[in-house]
């Protein structure tokens, strides 16, 4: 239990997807203009990342990993070269599935998410989450917690950036820095702040 909690915190703060690993920056920068959309994006990323990290880990472990087919008499079979294609397929399919379920049973949430859900199909932080779980040999529960933690870290970062960007309404920026320019500067400063977490020792 304690291990899972520290894994969650590690994924959320020490290895923050956008601010420490610089993954998923496109949505991080593009959809942080208002806090409302940032909250929607954060929830969507957390859900999809948690679900797909666990699912992909299970698929890798039981189907693709070298030696996964030993029980069927094929111990040499190594399908791990299919991992990228399989992971992207699974992410696209689960995003589609979540979208359909939401559309049918929770239309309010579905319309609130709007464009974000389909966007997550090509979100690099989500693919990276799956690849990390394989690289580090997490089991399925750990992958799920890691995915949720990574998603929560992304959500916190993007909502914080949205809060700051809304306050920029009071700023008087030089023409060249307006919009994306100052957002990069702010993201850099946030990264500077989060680097403090990276220097902590989380067992």
């Amino acid at each position: 239990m304690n291990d899972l909690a520290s894994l969650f915190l590690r994924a959320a703060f020490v290895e923050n997807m956008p601010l420490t690993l610089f993954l998923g920056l496109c949505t991080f920068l593009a959809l942080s203009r208002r806090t409302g959309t940032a909250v929607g994006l954060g929830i969507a990323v957390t859900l999809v990342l948690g679900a797909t990290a666990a699912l992909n880990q299970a698929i890798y472990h039981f189907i693709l990993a070298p030696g996964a087919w030993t029980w069927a008499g094929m111990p040499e079979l190594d399908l791990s070269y299919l991992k990228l294609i399989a992971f992207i397929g699974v992410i696209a399919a689960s995003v589609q599935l979540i979208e359909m379920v939401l559309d049918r049973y929770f239309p309010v949430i579905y319309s609130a998410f709007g464009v974000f859900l389909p966007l997550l199909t090509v979100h690099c932080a989500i693919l990276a989450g799956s690849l990390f779980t394989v690289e580090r040999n997490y089991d399925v529960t750990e992958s799920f917690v890691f995915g949720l933690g990574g998603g929560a870290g992304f959500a916190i970062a993007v909502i914080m950036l949205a809060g700051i960007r809304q306050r920029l309404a009071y700023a008087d920026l030089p023409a060249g820095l307006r919009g994306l320019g100052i957002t990069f500067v702010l993201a850099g400063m946030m990264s500077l702040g989060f680097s403090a977490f990276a220097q902590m020792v989380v067992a």
Partner: protein
Amino acid sequence: MIRGLWDRETVALMVLAAMLPLAAMWLQVEGVDAAFKLVFFLVFAGIWHLLFMLVRAQPPSFAGAVTALAIAILAPEELGVVHLLLGVSFGVVMAELVFGGWGRNVLNPATVTLAFLGFGFPAAPWPDLIAQIGWAAIPAALIGLLTGVFAGRVMVGALAVFGIAHLMGVDLSGVYPAIAVVFVLLVLDPVTSAATRTGRLLYGALFAALVVLFLIEWHGAAPIQISAAAALLASLAAPLLDEIAIASWLAQRRRHLG
């Protein structure tokens, strides 16, 4: 006077006045060297303010003196002139002046400078503040509170969390001066702290919680480095805390009024 008495520079002067006990105590302890350092940073920050006034017609502010004082007290001394100048330029220009000057910035320039120096030069020898300077932070905070430029709620939030941490057995005695000085110089800054009532309580509490977390988990960091990192993270979260406060207030009103 068209704008009345309470314009930006009045507030900046009030903040500066609140810093006087701290500055006086620091100068008395550190002596002539300290005065030298202060003048050096004052001149350098002043040059940047002047440059932005000439290029962008941005009025310079007395708040630049507060920044210079904070950096002079807290920055690692033996880092070398070039590194210090680099850090100060980054902080003053990228965190304050490009936003349109003091009052429009999101982050405190001194906080960013210290975080930059701490990140860029991790082996830097951070100054060791003695207890007297820490005690001088109390009259500074009180003056700010009385003149109305420092928010009491930020202090309440921070003190509550530090009190809980103390009761739970976290040893704050050795790091108290650094935390107190950073709190007064950087965290209480009226521009970059939260602006709503609930937001201010949360902001002070967040700073204190981060300091306690770093004290426990971040081994081998100087107290000033810990406090500056916590101050940076707290002021990054301040706009969000305000948003949370406003959203909860709106929800409350909606519940009451139907």
